[in-house]
C-alpha cells in the first residue's frame, strides 16, 4: 500500500512537472504569441495607417477615375454616334452622283497641271484656276505652255476687273515666250486695259507694237480697228523727208 502510495506520489510529481512543463510551454508560447500579437498589432496598425493613407488617395483617385470614366463613356457614346453619322454621311456622299473632278494631278506632270487649270477656268472655278496657272508658271517657266498659263493668269484678273494686276500679268506673257501664240492676245488685252485705265498713249504704243510684231494675227486686225477709232493718225505711214505733201481735194457734193 505504501509502495502504491509512493508510486502515486511519483506519478503525481511527474504529472505536476508535465503540467508545469506544459504551463511553461504554454506561457512561453503565450508570450511569443503575445509578442506576435503585439507585432501583428503594430503591423496591422501600420498597415491600417498605410491603408488609411492609401484609402484617402484611392478615394480621390477613384472619384477622379470614375469621373473620367463617365466622361470617357459619354465621349465614347458621342464617338459612336459621330462614327455612325460619319459612316452615314460617307455613304451619302459616296452615293451622290457627283460631277467628276479632274483626274488626280501626278506631281511632276506638267500637262496634267495645265489641263486641270484650264478645266477649272472653263468651269468657272477661277480662283482655283489662278492658283494652278501660277503654280504652273512657277514650276515650269521654261515649258512650252508657260506663256499660255501666264496668259490665263492675266485673263482671270481681267475677268475680275482687276485692271492694273491684269495688265501687269499680260505684260509677262511675251517675256516667257516672245514668239508664242499668246503674245498677240496678251498685248491686245493689255492695250485695251490701258485704254480703260485712261493711259491712251501707252495703249496706242501697245497696239502699234502688236501690229508691227504680228501683222497677220486676228489681234492685229482688232488693234487696227481700235486705232482707227482712237488715233487714226497713228496708222498713217510716217512722212518721208522731202516727200510731196498730199494735196487735199475738195469732196464731191
Amino acid at each position, binding site marked *: 500500500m505504501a509502495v502504491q502510495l509512493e508510486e502515486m506520489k511519483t506519478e503525481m510529481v511527474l504529472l505536476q512537472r508535465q503540467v508545469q512543463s506544459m504551463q511553461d510551454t504554454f506561457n512561453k508560447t503565450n508570450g511569443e504569441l503575445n509578442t506576435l500579437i503585439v507585432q501583428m498589432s503594430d503591423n496591422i496598425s501600420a498597415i491600417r495607417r498605410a491603408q488609411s493613407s492609401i484609402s484617402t488617395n484611392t478615394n480621390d483617385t477613384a472619384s477622379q477615375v470614375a469621373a473620367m470614366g463617365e466622361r470617357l463613356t459619354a465621349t465614347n457614346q458621342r464617338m459612336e454616334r459621330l462614327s455612325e453619322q460619319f459612316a452615314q454621311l460617307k455613304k451619302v456622299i459616296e452615293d451622290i452622283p457627283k460631277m467628276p473632278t479632274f483626274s488626280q494631278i501626278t506631281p511632276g506632270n506638267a500637262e496634267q497641271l495645265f489641263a486641270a487649270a484650264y*478645266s477649272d477656268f472653263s468651269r468657272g472655278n477661277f480662283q482655283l484656276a489662278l492658283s494652278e496657272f501660277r503654280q504652273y508658271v512657277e514650276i515650269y517657266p521654261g515649258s512650252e505652255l508657260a506663256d499660255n498659263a501666264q496668259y490665263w493668269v492675266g485673263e482671270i484678273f481681267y475677268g475680275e476687273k482687276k485692271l492694273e494686276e491684269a495688265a501687269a500679268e499680260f505684260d509677262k506673257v511675251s517675256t516667257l515666250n516672245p514668239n508664242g501664240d499668246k503674245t498677240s492676245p496678251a498685248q491686245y488685252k493689255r492695250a*485695251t486695259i490701258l485704254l480703260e485705265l485712261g493711259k491712251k498713249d501707252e495703249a496706242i504704243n501697245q497696239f502699234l507694237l502688236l501690229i508691227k510684231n504680228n501683222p497677220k494675227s486676228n489681234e492685229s486686225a482688232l488693234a487696227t480697228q481700235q486705232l482707227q477709232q482712237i488715233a487714226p493718225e497713228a496708222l498713217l505711214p510716217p512722212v518721208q523727208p522731202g516727200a510731196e505733201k498730199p494735196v487735199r481735194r475738195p469732196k464731191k457734193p
Partner: protein
Amino acid sequence: MKKGILVSTILLLIVGSSAFLFPVDATLDIQNPASQTQDELRRQLGTIIVTPGAGPSLAVADFQARSTNVDQALAMFNETVWRDLKFASVANIVGKSLYPKTRLADPSGLRFEEWGNEPVKADYVVFGSLTGNTEAQGFLYDMKTRQQLLTARLSGDARNMAHQLADQIIKLLTGVDGIALSKIAYIHNREVYVMDYDGYGSRAFTRDGSIALFPAWSTDGRKLAYVSYRNGYPNIVIRGEDGLIIGSTQFKGTTTSPSISPNGSLAFSSSKDGDSMEIYVANGDGSNARKLTRTRNSVNISPRWNPRTGRELAFISDRGGSPQIYLIGADGTNERAILSLGGQMDSPAWSPDGRFIAFTWDGGGGTFNIYMADVASGQVLRLTREGRNENPAWSPDSRHIAFQSNRTGRWEIWAMHIDGSEPRQLTLNGGRSPSWAY
C-alpha cells in the same frame, strides 16, 4: 506655246474604231495606253450617271387615290414619276415586282422592314397619294435612319406634279437641280416647236410660215433665237419665251447658227461682209454686230458660248482644210484649234458646267455620230453608234444630251445619258436641231 502646236495637242482616246487617223498629242503622256485613259473618262462619267449596281437604291411606290375619279391622273402621275426618276439616273430604281403587296399612301402605313430588307432592300422609298386630279402629296423616307426626308404638297396637272416631285427628290438626293421641268425646242415642219423634256406636250412656238432652223435658248430659258427665212435672206430672230419678237438681224447673205451667252449677247455666223462665213457677236437684240473671225474663203460656223463663263466660244472652221472645232475669246482674241482629228466636225455644244464639248463628227469618213470631248484634256468619247446622229444639245444639269437621229428611218429627237447609255426617243412625228432650255 508655239503657234500651231495646239492643233496637234489633242489625243483621241476613244473613238470606237481603229480606222480613224488623227494626230497624237505630243504633250500628253503617250506611254499611257489609250484604253486606260478611256477607262478613266468612263469611270468619271460613271460618277455622273448611276449605273446598275452602283449608287443608292430607290423604291417608287405607286401613289394611291385619295379621291374618286382620279384614275386617269393617277396613272399618268405614277408613270411620269417613274420615268423621271429612272431617266435622272441618280439612283437605282427597284423593280415594282419586288414591292410589298400592301398599298402605301401615307407614313402611317410604312413598314420599314418591308422596304428596307430583302427583297426590296431600298435605301429610300417614295410614296404618296393623289387627293384630287390636281393635288397630291408625296413623301420620301430613308430606310436606314427611318427618317422622313421630304414632304411635298403638289398642285397642277398630273404630269406637272410628277415632274415637281421628281425634281424635289433629285435635288434632295444629289444637291443638283433636276431637269424634269425643263423644255426642249426643236424644228418640226419648218417651224420651231417646244416640248417637255420627255417628249410630251409638244406645241408650235413659231408660225412664221417660212423656214425656221437652229433654235437656241438663252441660258435662262427666257429667250429663243433661231434662223428664219421670213424676210427672204436667212437671218436671226430673237423671241421672248412668250413668243414676242425681241430683235433680229437684217443682213444680206446668209446669217445662221445663233447662240445666246449667259449675259445675253448673241453670237452667230454670217457672210454679210463678204464671201467668207465669219463669226460675229452682237447685242441681245441682234444689233451692233462685231466680227470675231477674219478668214478668207473659209467657212466659220456654229458658234456656241461656254455657258458657264460666257468668255469663250467654240465654233467650226474649215480654214485648215476640213471642218474642225476651234475656240475664240468673246472679244475675238486667242483663237485656236482645240480638236483636230481629221474628217468633218459640226455643231459643237459646250456643256452647261463648262467641262465638255459634244459635237458631231464623221470619224474621218464614216457615218456622223455624237462625240464628246473633255475641253481641257482633249479626251474624246463616242456616244452614239446606231444610224446617223447629229446636233447634240446639253441638258441643264450637264448629265444628258439630246440629239437628232435617223435610226428609225426618219429624223427624230432623242436623248441619252452623258455616257451614251439609255437613248430614248422623244419625238414621234419628226424633229431636228434640239436645244435644251436651262
